[in-house]
């Protein structure tokens, strides 16, 4: 990587880092794993940087989904502890309490979904990608996206009452 490319790369990470990390955070159950995921994906992106990718963001999205699926496969074989402690980020102000509560609920809801359904829900609902775009990122047909989304949302609806009590009251 040339020095100019490194500058470009740094600018890219500064601009899209937050968005991509939030996206990664929705795909995996904890913050540490999300950071691991984004580092690995960025490393792969840095290898391809000189090739002049059309859209580095799209490349990152696809890579992150693939890594999340791999990680889920590994988690299935080697179970990790359920209780996950969020690392203390430097700014624990009052707004963050709400955000952390929301994150906890989100994690509980999404944890019930298998990796592909989870990725579909995240891409379609939260990121607002179209069916065709989602299908491209996930490497499947639009029909699969549709059915995965429906099943995923059904599961979210099923689990919703269980998550309503504790976090909701905490933030209220």
């Amino acid at each position, binding site marked *: 990587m040339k020095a100019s490319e490194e500058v470009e790369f740094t600018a890219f990470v500064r601009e899209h880092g937050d968005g991509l990390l939030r996206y990664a955070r929705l795909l995996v159950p904890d913050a540490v794993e999300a*950071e691991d995921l984004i580092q690995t994906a960025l490393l792969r992106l840095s290898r391809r940087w000189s090739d002049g990718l059309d859209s580095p963001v799209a490349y990152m999205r696809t890579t992150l989904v693939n890594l999340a699926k791999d990680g889920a496969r590994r988690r299935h074989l080697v179970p990790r502890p359920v209780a996950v402690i969020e690392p203390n980020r430097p700014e624990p102000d009052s707004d963050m309490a709400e955000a952390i509560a929301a994150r906890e609920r989100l994690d509980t809801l999404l944890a019930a979904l298998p990796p592909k359904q989870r990725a579909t829900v995240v891409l379609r609902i939260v990121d607002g990608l179209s069916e065709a775009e989602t299908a491209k990122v996930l490497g499947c047909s639009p029909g699969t996206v549709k059915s995965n989304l429906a099943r995923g949302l059904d599961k979210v609806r099923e689990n919703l009452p269980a998550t309503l009590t504790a976090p909701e009251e905490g933030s209220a």
Partner: protein
Amino acid sequence: MSTPTLTPDDAAALLRDLAATAAPATKCPQDMASRVLARRRRTRVRRRLVVAGALTLVAGSLAAGTWVGHSRYFGYYEPSATMAPTINAGDTAVLDKTLTPQRDDLVLVTVTADGAPFDALKRVIGLPGDTVACPATPEGSCDGVEVNGIRIDDAYLAALTTKPFPATKVPADRLFLLGDNRAESSDSRNWQPLPPTPIKGVVVEIRRPGQAPEAVPGAPAHERPGNNLIDPLGPVPPASVQSVAPTP
């Protein structure tokens, strides 16, 4: 909002809301780019080192495969006393695989005795066509080996005596070989007729432990290796200077 009749759209909206609320708590670390770039540099350096190591290994093996065993000179560790006192057990002989043996040269030959082949150093006494003999004196001993009726100069023998043996004519493509340790050596005096065996090399230098290299006593002068490469092993593939074998 939390009614059991929640529609998928409601669920989607809820997820969107939650994600939007949770988003600010997730921030990409400031040094993420530099972390990734540093890692990339490290892996690249490591990869280059591995590649360089692998290339060195391959080149080294190729060089060894090409050059080992291909030098003009090679070393031979003498395990027996057959050539004492010229070459004692434990000395190393340096051989030249390109020379043709002359009279009085020391040569390394492969001999088969009792069905097992082995290497041995011997001195060339008779060339093809020569008649070699050691006539007995009236006392029953032999004063010296005669080649074509002329007594050879064997000052290199020190005081070792030779038992008499009858005259032998050396056939073509054969050499009459004797060990310098005439009392102990097994050589052309008692070997049965052998098929032609390649001579592996001619001794040009003797290296005794703790002493400077020296030329072979009693043998014609040959070019010595000096600083040239001396193979620790025999020639690869086996050299065949001349198809000759010791004869009885």
